[in-house]
């Protein structure tokens, strides 16, 4: 556990997560979301997407990892909410794509709750909006 002493307005350092097609297949199995737009290029293109896209919930899970990583406590999240604004296309390559997370501390309450406002970027575009996570300060 790291010692947390956050201040309003504080910037958190960049965290980058790589996402490949294999990650999406694994996530589909673990989560039970087998929507083919997350593994079939044919289906994804057929519904007007640029190609296979990541599950929104996979991107949200990465947001959770980013925050627990910054905080240094895997069980700290009390509240996590996001709006999905743009898809995360995942090309069929070994490299896949990357999602970058940064955050700013929006609020530190008197009872020790810290609110993070997250930014998630893939290929230069914001893929989440209103991404807000509340953690309990230990």
């Amino acid at each position, binding site marked *: 556990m790291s010692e947390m002493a956050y201040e309003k307005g504080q910037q958190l350092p960049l965290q980058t997560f790589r996402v490949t097609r294999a990650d999406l297949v694994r996530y589909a199995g673990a989560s039970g979301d087998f929507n083919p737009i997350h593994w079939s290029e044919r289906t994804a293109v057929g519904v007007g997407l640029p190609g296979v896209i990541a599950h929104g919930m996979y991107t949200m899970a*990465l947001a959770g990892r980013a925050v627990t990583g910054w905080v240094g406590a895997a069980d700290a999240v009390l509240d996590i909410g996001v709006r999905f604004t743009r898809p995360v296309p995942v090309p069929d390559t070994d490299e896949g794509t990357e999602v970058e997370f940064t955050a700013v501390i929006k609020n530190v309450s008197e009872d020790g709750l810290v609110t993070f406002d997250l930014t998630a970027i893939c290929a230069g575009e914001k893929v989440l909006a209103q991404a807000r996570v509340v953690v309990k300060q230990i």
Partner: protein
Amino acid sequence: MPLDQSFTGRTYPPTEPYQVGREKIREFATAIGADDALYHDVEAAQKAGYRDVVAPPTFPIILSFAAMEQIVTDPELGMDYTRVVHGDQRFSYRRPIVAGDELVVVSSIDDITHRGGHDFLTTRAELATPAGEPVVTVVCKLVVRGHGE
């Protein structure tokens, strides 16, 4: 055909209890690339005061997604799931989920609005123990894209 707004406030019957498995938590944590000891190592979780390994924050989507079947397949509501886009998602915790928990899901429709040719549906899943202890509230907003372009 816009969704019938009178479905706002409808609550669906509780699901059968879901048994949160240790290996399922490990599998989910591995799938999101989270190698934190609390998600994998029983001893580490117990040292932190938990009975067993702890689930990552978005783990309850497994239960809420399955329970939402009741809504999206409700023939009276008549959603076209092929036109559904995930809009917003939120998890609000009373306490972390731990392996060995049994959780019952009660799904509700909190809001239906129609604007710009699209339907906006807000669903809420309350996850609680069979004894009624609330554990996490899962709110999901779906957009059902209209046909008119």
